[in-house]
């Protein structure tokens, strides 16, 4: 059947960029980080990533079906959520808990509010914050990196039965005979014992920590590549890092025995990963340009404040969530100045 002539509204041209393409590229950028996580922590990390991603996808599929939005898995955004969630969990985290995190993150953090584009906070971090509050012991149980035999065996806690307490790892760790292992991450060691892990180690990732947070350099490279591909607003990661330095530098200059160096602050913990891949999630950050910078500075500064003065050794997750919470306010306070509208003319209009 002839369709006749077509009519559409202008513009009749469109940029080739699309949501699917952005999301796919981010997944691509995350893959090296995942690979390093698996290399470093072995099979457990692999299973962890598969679980979070799988459960995230299933959850999204289920809820998007139920709410009649059709299948929204195909836009890839949920894959990012799953991967990032896996990357922020300890490598030996029980899989059932990881599944809970993924379900809560996607279900409560995203689908409940309408899915892609309407989540108010970062779904991956909502999931993580939930399990951090629900299973605080399990999520602060760390296992050493580069354990011998990591490709052949699992960390015992990984396969904990659902709803059961994690299988203790102490005996397993002791059996590894890794002398240097103290059972803590660089951040915790710094916070509670004021000993800084050498920068080279935290920078390259030769340390323990959450599955995907360890190698600052790798994250930096992947993030920069993404920015170069114009898939993320580089203002956000840069201002997160700047915000962190802004707080850390003066403290360190004042008292370098108690406070960590800015380098250490930047390279340790989840700051790098969060700055490049989580704070930069556009959905839950302010849309305005000035807003994005304020938001980044806020997150960076708050991370360091929580790390140094709060009860936790790492604060970036909460900082990002709180950043998401103030995002709408920042956004509305930083509306761009409209061409031809001056403060005076706007006032006049309001008065009229």
């Amino acid at each position, binding site marked *: 059947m002839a369709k006749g002539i077509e009519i559409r509204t202008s513009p009749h041209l469109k940029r080739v960029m699309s949501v699917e393409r952005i999301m796919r590229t981010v997944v691509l950028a995350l893959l090296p980080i995942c690979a390093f996580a698996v290399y470093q922590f072995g099979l457990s990390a692999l299973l962890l990533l598969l679980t979070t991603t799988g459960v995230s996808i299933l959850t999204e599929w289920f809820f998007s079906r139920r709410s009649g939005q059709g299948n929204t898995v195909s836009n890839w955004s949920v894959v990012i959520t799953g991967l990032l969630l896996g990357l922020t969990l300890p490598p030996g985290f029980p899989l059932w808990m990881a599944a809970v995190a993924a379900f809560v993150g996607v279900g409560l953090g995203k689908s409940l509010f309408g899915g892609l584009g309407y989540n108010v906070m970062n779904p991956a971090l909502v999931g993580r914050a939930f399990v951090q509050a629900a299973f*605080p*012991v399990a999520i*602060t*149980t760390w296992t050493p990196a580069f354990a011998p035999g990591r490709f052949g065996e699992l960390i015992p806690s990984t396969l904990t039965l659902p709803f059961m307490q994690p299988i203790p790892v102490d005996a397993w760790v002791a059996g590894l005979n890794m002398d240097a292992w103290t*059972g803590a991450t660089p951040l915790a060691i710094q916070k*509670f*014992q004021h000993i800084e892990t050498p920068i080279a180690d935290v920078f390259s990732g030769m340390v323990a920590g959450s599955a995907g947070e360890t190698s600052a350099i790798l994250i930096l490279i992947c993030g920069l590549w993404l920015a170069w591909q114009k898939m993320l607003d580089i203002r956000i990661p840069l201002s997160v890092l700047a915000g962190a330095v802004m707080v850390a530098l003066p403290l360190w200059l004042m008292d370098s025995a108690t406070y960590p160096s800015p380098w250490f602050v930047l390279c340790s913990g989840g700051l790098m990963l969060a700055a490049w891949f989580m704070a930069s999630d556009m959905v839950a950050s302010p849309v305005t340009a000035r807003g994005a910078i304020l938001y980044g500075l806020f997150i960076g500064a708050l991370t360091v404040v929580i790390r140094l003065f709060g*009860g936790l050794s790492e604060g970036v997750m909460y900082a990002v969530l709180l950043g998401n919470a103030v995002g709408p306010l920042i956004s509305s306070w930083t509306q761009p100045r409209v061409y031809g509208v001056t403060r005076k003319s706007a006032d006049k209009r309001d008065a009229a």
Partner: protein
Amino acid sequence: MEAQNQSRPAAATPTWAMLRTLGGIALLSGLLVALVYQVTLPIIAENQRVLTEKAVFRVLPQASLKRDFVLTKQGGLAPVGEGVDGEHVYGGYDAAGNLVGVAFTGVAVGYAGPIRVMFAYDPECRCLNGSKVLSSNETPGFGDKLDFDPEFLKNFEALDARLDAEGRALANPIVTVKHGTKNQPWEIDGISGATISSKAMGRAANAAAQRAVPAIERDLAWLKQQH
């Protein structure tokens, strides 16, 4: 608009009714509450006593009798009575009337607010040999460990609280150390994963002991007679 307003009835203020009602209700309420208060006061005091006693007997299991003392400003002990103010210290005596230990409370800020703990002091070994958390806001799962983790409770089997030469302070302040690094009798082996809470516990123990132990040691002889 003005004219209309005036034509409307001005607000009637029933002065007498208002005074009568509110005054009356307040009066009744005062009466009722005062009565209830009078009735419940002794029961509540008794409850309070029982509660403290339970805690004291928990940290001093051999005791069957508790006596209350007050830490005086002079750094000694005095029996509870009219006109003596100060922190309470509880002496525990066995059936035979022998002093089996002294209990006192300590407070320190933990992960989420103050942790109040009762400690037992054994003058024989000059050490703390019991603890019970009276109240805390610590995260469930973390906070519980202070009271139930057997490994952690081992710390309070004989925690050194010896006084220094002058007898004014502990010879070795009590501190919490990272889990697995305890190597002195006055150190508390922290709980892995709940460092903050266990450190608070150490601070509470230290502060309480620094205050109470010198006084106890000073008046130990007197204390032993007070059954």
